[in-house]
């Protein structure tokens, strides 16, 4: 639990942002609770950075309202919104020392020098930068610059902290360390945090709730657990999870879901065309199941991923359980457990939850790793 918790929730109401007539965000409503860590996740060009800049006040809204702690701020300058931001490129001032970088906002706000230095020192200590206060950004490593950027944001004790893909310039190992540090930092300072990323691992590990954004619209806004296990749309299903969920065009005849060549994939009462989703790790090898040709085999050590081809040419991926060998067989028989199936509308992509929901819900828990 956070030691302190900001109560500055963020409200987005009918938010529209367009550039020269082309809407990037066609209309968006959401409530981000105070102290919550929200991750905005989506592919590049989905409008997630634009949304963050709108909250920050760096972009002007075309229409709609933004509230922070209940106060309407869409007409306010960024500096009056009581928020801080960590940028993708860190945006450190190259001509200032680390201490001057961290303390610049306080200097602009005319905080007395003694207090300023104390707060800079405290912020630097928080991110373990105390020894580098006299250096210039050019003399620091990527990870250290990242820490300066974070210290610069937290030194103002903001109610809201915004992160614009802050980890994307770091290498994989550093990224993992910084992820843990950011989570720890959030627990300590408890500011309402909004974190933009295209990396699903960052989203799953950091977020209290994930907002999945696609073409400026919210596909789903829920906890990581719900996003993973109960994707609200084919887009979310395909975006979260690695390897990605299999999405197969099927037609239901009321008892079975069938491929275009008539092969029955699974039992299901759905009628008409639909998109069938199943995670690779839930596809099971089963004697007497559907025949499939193995076209590609990836041994990742901990487990294997097989790419299969079904009768009508549809590709399907299967992930074996931990330590399970992939085998060398050229063909395989598989089964798709009814409990693991997701069904999406063929035209809207939204989940068709109603038909099998109770069974799915119950079955999900059998498959949870815990």
């Amino acid at each position, binding site marked *: 639990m956070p030691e302190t918790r900001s109560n500055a929730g963020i409200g987005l109401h009918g938010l529209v942002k367009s550039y020269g007539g082309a809407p990037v965000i066609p209309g968006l409503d959401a409530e981000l609770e105070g102290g919550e860590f929200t991750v905005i996740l989506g592919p590049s060009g989905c409008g997630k950075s634009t949304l963050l800049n709108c909250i920050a*006040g760096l972009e002007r809204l075309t229409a709609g309202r933004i509230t922070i702690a209940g106060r309407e701020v869409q007409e306010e300058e960024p500096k009056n919104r009581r928020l801080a931001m960590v940028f*993708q490129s860190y945006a450190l001032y190259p*001509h200032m020392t680390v201490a001057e970088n961290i303390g610049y906002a306080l200097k602009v706000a005319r905080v007395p020098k003694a207090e300023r230095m104390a707060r800079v020192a405290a912020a630097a200590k928080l991110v373990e930068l105390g020894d580098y206060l006299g250096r210039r950004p*050019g003399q620091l490593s990527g990870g250290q610059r990242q820490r300066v950027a974070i210290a610069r944001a937290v030194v103002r004790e903001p109610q809201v902290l915004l992160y614009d893909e802050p980890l994307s310039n770091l290498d994989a190992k550093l990224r993992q360390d910084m992820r843990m540090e950011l989570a720890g930092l959030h627990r300590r300072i408890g500011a309402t945090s909004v974190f933009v990323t295209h990396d699903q691992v960052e989203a799953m590990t950091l977020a209290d709730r994930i907002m999945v954004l696609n073409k400026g619209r919210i596909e789903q806004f829920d906890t990581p657990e719900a996003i993973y296990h109960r994707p609200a749309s084919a887009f979310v299903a395909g975006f979260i999870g690695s390897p990605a969920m299999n999405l197969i065009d099927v037609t239901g005849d009321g008892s079975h879901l069938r491929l275009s060549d008539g092969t029955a994939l699974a039992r299901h009462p759905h009628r008409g065309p639909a998109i069938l989703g199943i995670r690779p790790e839930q596809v099971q090898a089963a004697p007497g199941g559907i025949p499939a040709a193995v076209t590609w085999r990836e041994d990742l050590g901990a487990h294997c991923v097989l790419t299969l081809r079904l009768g009508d040419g549809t590709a399907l991926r299967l992930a074996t359980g931990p330590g399970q060998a992939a085998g060398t067989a050229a063909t395989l028989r598989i089964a798709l457990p009814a409990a693991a199936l997701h069904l999406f509308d063929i035209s809207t992509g939204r989940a068709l939850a109603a038909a099998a929901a109770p069974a799915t819900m119950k079955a999900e828990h059998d498959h949870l790793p815990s």
Partner: protein
Amino acid sequence: MKQAIFRARFLLWGLAAPQLIVLFLFFYLPIILAFCWAFHLEQPFGGGSQFVGLANFRRVLGSSEFWSSAGATLLYMVLASGTSVAAALVLALAADRALKVSPLARNVFIWPKAVASASIGVIFVFILNPFLGILAPLNDLWPGFWNPRTNVLHTYIMLFAANVWNAIPFSFIILLAGLQAIPQELHRAGAMDGAGPWRRLRDIQLPLLGPQLFVVIVLEVADSLSGSFGLIDTMTQGGPGGATNLLVYKIYSDGFKAYDLSGAATQTVILMALVACVTGVQYLFLERKVNYDR
């Protein structure tokens, strides 16, 4: 340097030789020759020369005409480069904003580069002619309102106006490129830190523009001098009363019109020393302040 990969030493000198020869003949040799002549009495038309020690310097430094010319030169260097860099900076700061007129301005502000200093001298001398030019009606109303032929202040205003007009392009290009190289995220970070546009100008844009400002100031000092000849020769011929007789112009008339080769060479040496000093001072006091790792 990491790119230094070929090791053929003869080829290195072979490739550099053409430019080194040209530089030697028309840059270093004239400098050496100027020093030579400054210590000799040179007769015009190959009339022989005679070593005279510091006599030339004594003669030149003893003339009040030289001192007023040197003072005017220094004043012109500082004011001409100052006004043109300041004008270019203001225009670049304005053009850096995404305004409707910015693209047009970015194109048009380069045009004066195509106009020779002597051409703009001819043009401005006509436009600002006290009796026939654009200000002539004001002179009819208030006689003596504008007369660059007799009023030294008016002469200098005319010179600086022509110089600024002619010097905008280079400084503008370099400064605008420097401004646009400042990442947008730094502006945003500044805005998030609570700094408004003016504060960001002072704390972020100008300090980060330091290297470009330095280059532009250093080059503009040398350029204002070399461009001054075309302006003065077409606009004032050194007048009124020798007030705009800058060293560059004085050396030309002393050497080519009065055939005082030794005197001209001595003043050349002093002028080069002056420019070298100004440049050196700039390096000492400015360069250290603009260095940082980006």
